[in-house]
């Protein structure tokens, strides 16, 4: 029988300061040198990391009651609208929200200099943030307007709650059209003159546990520089896994996570507002997930390298916006990272949108936390849908009404 370990055994070693923890990059070499069985026996935890723009992110917060009371019907933070459709002084600010007076794409391509992600960054950085609340007034909440300034410390709660983060894999974007296009995948020059990808490849959390054996509801993670948890599967969680075009390679895609954590424990370094020209504002989120090496199979996936991980190439001038299923083929992360990729016979310069060096720093930080005994692993309280469950996306029913 192969190697079998339990969460309890691994946590015991973490408490004793004896756990062997390596990053998802380091483990690749280790398996090459010592083999799967030996490495599985030796290594307790593999740490992953990603630092990428993640639009489906935001913070819910409670700003406390004024005297007299107000029931926020409309709420703005630094001029960026937040959601007023929940209780009196609760609100949710989304990463892609933009000020009411933002010129958007009226002078194309728009700049989107400041949005919800920037507000969240300013909050975590401890800066003063302008809070404006508007209400229609009720007998129990008579006040109609407030303009004040708040800081993160003064809020009762501020919780980062991101409905879809850590996308397992992502389209590799090109532009087959004849004009420059501005997308959430960056600026894409015409006639496939550049190609952009957006995951950390061999460090990417969900690419290293594609069957969701260990990552589930309740998994404790590195989130925005603090501790967070996997709250649920992310929206559009449609995981699939297929063999890739080369031996032992894998095309895993479609998995996502909903994550949650106390904003007050996070750091401005790992939550950054970002502006995509012609597209909008978003937030770059740092996430790191530990993978306990419970058996050899878990290790086999955790040790997949950039050369064995593939992603589909998609045309963002037509196939993507018009939701056509065509793919221009598969490329490996090793090719993408090399700086040049060949697609349909054409050599194209490639660039990432996701910071590999920062992802590595996150995986390294999580490794330090675990080794120092301050971060133990949690057993998921519920597993997430796996590729075997075959969950697929439903298109929007567009009707004439």
């Amino acid at each position, binding site marked *: 029988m192969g190697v079998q370990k339990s969460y309890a055994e691994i946590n015991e070693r973490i408490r004793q300061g004896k756990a062997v923890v390596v990053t998802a990059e380091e483990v690749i070499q280790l398996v090459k040198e010592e083999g799967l069985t030996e490495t599985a026996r030796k290594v307790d935890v593999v740490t992953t990391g990603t*630092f990428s723009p993640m639009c489906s992110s935001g913070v819910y917060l409670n700003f406390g009651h004024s005297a007299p009371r107000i029931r926020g019907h409309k709420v703005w933070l630094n001029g960026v609208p937040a959601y007023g459709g929940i209780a009196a002084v609760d609100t949710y600010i989304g990463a892609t929200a933009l000020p009411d007076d933002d010129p958007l794409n009226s002078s194309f391509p728009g*700049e989107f200099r400041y949005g919800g992600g920037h507000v969240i960054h300013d909050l975590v950085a401890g800066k003063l943030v302008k809070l404006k609340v508007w209400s229609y007034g009720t007998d129990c909440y008579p006040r109609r307007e407030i303009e004040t300034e708040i800081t993160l410390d003064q809020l009762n709660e501020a919780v980062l709650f991101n409905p879809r983060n850590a996308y397992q894999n992502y389209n590799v974007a090109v532009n087959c059209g004849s004009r420059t296009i501005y997308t959430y995948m960056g600026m894409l020059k015409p006639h496939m003159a550049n190609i952009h990808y957006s995951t950390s490849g061999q460090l990417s959390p969900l690419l290293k546990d594609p069957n969701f054996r260990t990552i589930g509801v309740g998994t404790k993670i590195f989130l925005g520089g603090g501790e967070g948890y996997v709250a649920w599967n992310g929206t559009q969680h449609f995981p699939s896994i297929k063999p890739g075009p080369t031996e032992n390679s894998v095309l895993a895609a479609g998995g996502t996570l909903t994550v949650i954590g106390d904003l007050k424990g996070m750091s401005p370094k790992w939550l950054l507002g970002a502006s995509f020209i012609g597209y909008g504002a978003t937030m770059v989120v740092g996430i790191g997930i530990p993978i306990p090496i419970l058996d050899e199979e878990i290790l086999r996936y955790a040790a997949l390298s950039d050369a064995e991980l593939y992603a589909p190439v998609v045309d963002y001038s037509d196939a993507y916006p018009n939701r056509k299923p065509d793919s221009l083929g598969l490329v490996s992360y090793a090719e993408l990272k090399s700086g040049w990729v060949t697609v349909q016979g054409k050599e194209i*310069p490639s*660039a*990432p949108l996701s*910071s590999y*060096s920062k992802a590595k720093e996150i995986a390294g930080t999580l490794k330090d936390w675990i080794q120092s005994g301050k971060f133990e692993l949690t057993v998921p309280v519920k597993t997430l849908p796996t590729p075997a469950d075959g969950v697929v996306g439903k298109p929007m029913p567009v009707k004439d009404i």
Partner: protein
Amino acid sequence: MLRFPATLAEQPLIYYLVKDYDLVINIIKANINPHKEGTLIMELSGANYEQGIEYIRSRGVQVQFLTEEIVRNDDRCISCGACTAVCPSGALHIERPDMQVVFDGEQCIVCQLCTKVCPLKAMEAKF
């Protein structure tokens, strides 16, 4: 860049910049013809720089500053790489294998594309 209206094309303004304001002048490109609007691209330096500019402006010359250089705010850059396949000169490039994005100002041709595409607004044009 200086823009001369046709009426000023024959006046020795540059001579006065040197003589009265003691400025060092390096003309890069000149397009000045009698009785026509003219342009002059030049580098200007010296202690009385501000006064010199004020003088030629007061004479009706339009002064426009051209971008001199692009700088990177290293604290803002996260080495995402989004600028590297857009930068036409290779000034912004990835160093492998650690995937750090390097900015080499020497290679920069000041096209300013990076100032638009950098999601973190780390690239800045200095005038």
